[in-house]
């Protein structure tokens, strides 16, 4: 006994606490960089948002003045906010669209791999390229879309992207193209994992068509749906590239979203109002925090159930 205790004592501190300490050792680099590059800037943004600062000179403390202006009837902010909401809602159309394309492609026909890769193709393109292609597609007079609308006698004044009533929807449609492909690939992998015995059993019980889809297939696709939901929400909040390429926020600011407005205020050619830009960033962060907490909660819940 005594010799055992002596042997333990002779061991180093690390040896004695190996089980508890090792995970932390592995986590240290991650925690370090996550704190420096993610956590710290969040607090810095919040700090800057309480000042007026051009990025060069002295910061001037203004308290909550930036927020009062932002939330007290800044029209640009209101337009951006509602556009963000439009993006979030309409972008979710990518999930059912992706699902149906996946169901459609989930069959064994000659050359199906080729068709699948064709459908997946837009996701491989850079967002900038997709935006450019769509802005040509939407061109007034010469653009294909305008020509097609002309056959139906519909004339959109200024073209899709030049008309403040249609521009945001036009950009969302462009964004949906690659996003649908992404959801499709997620569902295609999900469909591979569907249990054929369950499908067989359901068929024996007389389920087919919509009932089969709703009660048998979809529940088994739940993990894929969750991931598709997460990436689509993130995609909707990352709409910056499309807007910058297709309309640059115009016409007269009608396609701005919060991230684009933040960029304009703080970093663009006529910007460098860091305090105000930071205030927008903080508001955007709080909005995203809602989604992040929801995702974390559902993941935590799933893990607990799985245990």
């Amino acid at each position, binding site marked *: 006994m005594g010799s055992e205790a002596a042997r333990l004592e002779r061991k180093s501190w690390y040896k004695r606490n190996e089980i508890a300490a090792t995970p932390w050792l592995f986590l240290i680099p991650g925690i370090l960089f996550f704190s420096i590059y993610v956590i710290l800037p969040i607090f810095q943004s919040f700090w800057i948002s309480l000042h007026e600062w051009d990025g*060069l000179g002295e910061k001037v403390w203004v308290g909550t003045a930036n927020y009062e202006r932002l939330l007290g009837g800044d029209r640009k902010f209101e337009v951006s906010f509602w556009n963000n909401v439009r993006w979030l809602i309409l972008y979710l159309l990518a999930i059912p669209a992706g699902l149906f394309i996946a169901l459609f492609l989930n069959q064994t026909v000659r050359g199906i791999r080729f068709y699948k890769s064709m459908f997946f193709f837009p996701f491989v393109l850079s967002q900038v390229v997709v935006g450019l292609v769509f802005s040509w597609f939407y*061109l*007034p007079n010469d653009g294909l879309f305008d020509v097609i609308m002309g056959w139906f006698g519909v004339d959109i004044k200024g073209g899709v992207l*030049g008309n403040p009533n249609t521009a945001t929807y036009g950009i969302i449609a462009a964004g949906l193209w690659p996003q649908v492909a992404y959801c499709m690939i997620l569902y295609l992998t999900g469909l591979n994992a569907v249990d054929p015995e369950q499908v067989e059993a359901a068929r024996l019980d007389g389920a087919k068509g919509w009932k089969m889809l709703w009660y048998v297939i979809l529940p088994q696709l739940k993990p894929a749906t969750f991931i598709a939901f997460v990436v689509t929400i993130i995609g909707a909040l990352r709409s910056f590239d499309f807007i910058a390429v297709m309309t640059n926020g115009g016409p007269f600011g009608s396609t701005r979203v919060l991230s684009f407005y933040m960029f304009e205020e703080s970093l663009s050619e006529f910007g*460098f109002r860091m305090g105000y830009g930071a205030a927008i960033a903080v508001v955007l962060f709080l909005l995203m925090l809602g989604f992040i907490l929801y995702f974390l909660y559902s993941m935590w819940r799933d893990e607990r159930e799985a245990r």
Partner: protein
Amino acid sequence: MHSIFKAPLAALAASSVSIAAAFAGSHASSLSGELRIISDMSNPAPRAVMEGLAAEFDEMHPDLTVELEIVDREAWKTQIRNALSANPPDVVNWYAANRMLPYVNAGLFMDVSDLWAEPEFEALASTKGAMTIDGKQWGVPYTYYQWGVYYRKDIFEELGLQEPATWDEEVANCQAILDSGRKCYTIGTKFLWTAGGWFDYVNSRTNGYDFHMALARGEVEWTDPRVRQTFDNWRQLIDMGAFIDDHQTYSWQEALPFIVDGEATAYLMGNFAVAAMRDGGLDDSKLDFYQFPVINPDVDYAEDAPTDTFHIASAAQNVDAAKEFLRFVTSADVQTRINSGDALGQLPVNAGSSIGDDKFVQQGFEMLSNNAGGGIMQFFDRDFPAEMASVGMEGLQEFMVFPDNLDDVLARLEDARQRIYQ
């Protein structure tokens, strides 16, 4: 005999050289070390000019090494802040007037009033005002260019039209052009600033240069009846359908085909657009230029002529060399050379320079020297503070597309004015 004389002479010569050197300070060839320049002259022709300048200056001063870095012109508009605050170069490119203000306020540009006090700089007097903030000068100009109406001479001749001198003639011309199935003006307002050019001209012709600059300084309300008068005049053209349709979806380059193809007959633009129009096949028999017509006969002509500049960073390492470089680029013969037709193809600022034999450069020089008594504007986005310019140009674009929204636009601009200039 000779040897006796020689020694004192040599000594005298030597001492006079050293005295001269002491007086001149940085002037003579005593410059040494390294001169770091960051330039935004990234388009092909300007780039060649800048590289030539750097090489020549390097050769003139054997002990001095000139290190030149050329940055994309658009990117430089946002990079200049970082460039000036961390490891700053000695000399940088920028723009005159209000665009200098943030850097002057932040102490990043060096006060070069001492250069402007030298007699040679009297030749640059025309732009001294645009380089002055708080009674000091913060940089030197190297080129500028005129704005005006570039029009299709062949179509004007076909329709029997003359260059208009008054607003009534302008409107009558436009009606004739519209009747022939064309548009009067091409414009691309996707990036907003082109609408600023129209506002500069209509407003300064309606209310005069002093009023326009007072508006830029935030001393006049945007809802003022005189501002409304400007918009009323402008609206006359909009209501006629004078501008091409859907201009909010085009950049200024994308608006060029309309004038090149003859679907529109004129373009209010800076002289830099001439090269592109010539490339499109409009030679001098098809393309011509006129000064924006008089609207209110009681006010003098004011012209947009944006000035591009060189500045010394306040943290420059080699100030002597930097100042000498500024003297070099403002000298009459250097400005003649860099602005000639095969170089920048623009106007030299130095009054002692001669100008290229290009038709448009000469017309522009004539106009700015003799027919711009009201004053020289630097352009909407340089005369107005940055935030006012961005809000303003967005409003101008909206007005051009939906003129009925004017009240709302003006109320918004007035809101912005009260906040920005406080």
